[in-house]
């Protein structure tokens, strides 16, 4: 890129457009750019002409001219107004396209810390943002040509997820989930888009089991987050094929002989939970978890512990995590009606809160299992039915 190129709009001023939504953004950028160039040249040229033509000199004095003209004033008020309307409209439609992820996205959870990123994949792989001797697997890996949604959450302060090549940015707000989506192609490293690619961007990742060809895009944090703000960057790796991505993640996800997070969860369940919580059946002393597996992804009605009102929740990671850690916050109505089990009897006598002594939060179990372990257990609960279906 040269400075000369930079005069001609998005091609020279913006990084390569390597997502499906980038082209539309660039088009609007160019549209605005050329109107701005037009008005800037108009204003400066008129100003320069007047400066020369009406410069103060002997024999020249100010000539009478009207001090106001309603018609002209209205014209130069109305014309910019008209020009602005389509810019707003296209900006808005483009924004909606950037905000609303398509339904079939490959979802990756991105957690922001001070000052690192953590990328959690559907396979259970859990990668950091930088390569270190201890962590040879790192970065945000995505399949080519597929809609990818990143679910953003923050550990404690604001961050922002920004990939310039995709024209994607969203703040990561503590206490909330935000998201961004993109669909990036895999581009051959010999193609012209790679002309100005940063030299340190890897084009291939070598691991002990294989070589992966990738496009590496810079990922930045753009919301100030403290000392390490400027070092909180990473790479987005677009693999050449989805198979290679899965292979890479499988390598990265090597959980000491386990294939998936769900298997890790099964192990944890057997050690920590199975003595009380069964999948189904009578005679249990604590809630069964089979219903969760049965209804995974569906809406059920629960009593909200805060308001004592029935509310609808979707059975999923959030609900299960919350129920494990704060059993009283959302009570599944069906559990009350499990006639005959010791658990339900206790419930009906109003004794369930006393069971909190036995529950998860604040107990030793919490110390062992931790956040990542909980995720494994959740994955296990989710997977139970799928395994049986097979």
């Amino acid at each position, binding site marked *: 890129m040269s400075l000369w190129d930079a005069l001609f709009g998005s091609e020279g001023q913006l990084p390569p457009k390597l997502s499906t939504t980038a082209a539309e953004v660039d088009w609007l950028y160019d549209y605005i750019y050329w109107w701005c160039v037009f008005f800037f040249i108009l204003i400066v040229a008129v100003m320069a002409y007047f400066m020369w033509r009406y410069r103060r000199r002997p024999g020249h004095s100010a000539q009478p001219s009207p001090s106001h003209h309603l018609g002209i004033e209205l014209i130069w008020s109305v014309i910019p107004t008209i020009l602005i309307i389509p810019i707003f409209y296209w900006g808005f439609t483009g924004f909606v396209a950037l905000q609303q992820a398509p339904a079939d996205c490959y979802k990756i959870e991105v957690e922001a810390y001070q000052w690192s990123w953590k990328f959690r994949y559907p396979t259970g792989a859990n990668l950091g943002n930088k390569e270190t001797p201890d962590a040879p697997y790192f970065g945000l890996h995505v399949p080519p040509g597929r809609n990818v949604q990143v679910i953003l959450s923050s550990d404690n302060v604001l961050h922002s997820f920004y990939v310039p090549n995709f024209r994607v940015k969203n703040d990561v707000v503590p206490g909330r989930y935000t998201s961004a989506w993109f669909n990036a192609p895999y581009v051959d490293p010999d193609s012209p888009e790679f002309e100005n690619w940063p030299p340190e961007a890897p084009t291939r990742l070598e691991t002990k089991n294989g070589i992966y060809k990738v496009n590496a895009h810079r990922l930045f944090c753009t919301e100030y987050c403290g000392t390490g703000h400027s070092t909180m960057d990473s790479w987005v790796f677009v693999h050449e094929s989805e198979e290679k991505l899965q292979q890479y993640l499988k390598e990265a996800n090597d959980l000491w002989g386990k294939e998936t997070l769900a298997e890790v969860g099964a192990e944890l369940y057997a050690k920590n939970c199975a003595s009380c919580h069964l999948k189904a059946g009578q005679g249990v002393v604590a809630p069964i978890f089979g219903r969760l597996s049965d209804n995974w992804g569906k809406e059920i009605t629960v009593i909200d512990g805060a308001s004592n009102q029935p509310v609808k929740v979707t059975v999923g990671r959030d609900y299960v995590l919350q129920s494990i850690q704060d059993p009283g916050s959302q009570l599944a109505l069906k559990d009350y*009606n499990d006639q005959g089990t010791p658990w339900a009897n206790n419930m009906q006598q109003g004794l369930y809160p006393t069971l909190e002594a036995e529950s998860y939060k604040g107990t030793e179990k919490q110390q062992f299992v931790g956040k990542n372990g909980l995720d494994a257990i959740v994955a296990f609960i989710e997977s139970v039915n799928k395994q049986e279906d097979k």
Partner: protein
Amino acid sequence: MSDDHGHGHGDPNLAHHWDTMDQQVHAGKFGMWLFLSTEVLLFAGLFCAYCVYRGLHPEVFAEASKVLNWKLGALNTVILLASSFTMAMGVRAAQLGNKSQTSLMLVLTLCGAGGFMVVKAIEYNEKFEHGTVWIGHKNSITGDYNYSPQDKFKDVEYAYPAEAAEAAPDESEHGDPKLAALLDTTVTPIEPKLGGGIVQPGVAPSGLASDDGKRVTTAPKLQNMHIFFGIYFVMTGTHGLHVIIGAIAIIWVLIRNIRGDFTPKYNLPVDLVGLYWHLVDLIWIFLFPLLYLINLDPWN
């Protein structure tokens, strides 16, 4: 442009850049109203925070406001309204040049300010004793919260169900009927609102009710209860600060009045301090129903 108005500049209270006292008085009032508008917008932030969090957590506001004593709030409303009246009377007396009546009215207004703060202090004290205060910030050295969930919230137990069982037996000792009602394990009637496909409307779900149809549980599990108290303390605290500033201003005009500074022609400071004091009253008029009257017990 000015010195030909001899009578204007004869008055030592008329500053040199004004032509007439009328001009000066109107400018003073105009400036005061501009200042009052900044006060309104200062409180706008607090009202905004109030509205947002009440919109987000209506149940928290409904429950937590029961801890406030509406009778004390109403008493304070009466005190402030009365002091506003005495302030208006004070301004009237100053306009009429009745120096002793002005002093009397200003002293009465000061008594109102003092009474208000005393009642406020009683209320605050009660809250601190029961720990119904804001959550407190994490101590950077020990990692504990200044008002830790375990200690300060044990009486009310809104946000922390784990401690509910331990906290529940304590509440009778504190003897606050409002708290007791909030924590009551036996008397809260079931709201026959449970709907959905699982429970028939109007029928208590079997697991939620004991035989006598009363709710059996420990405490209502309200997260974020502390936000109400955070907002309560910030709103009433900022307002209380304005009461104190107003009282200081009243003392200032009282001294000037005793010194004999004011005449029927020049009593602008009394008027301006009066305006400020009425604004303090005006804000309380909104704070009272918004904080105290959210969820009163109906007539028995």
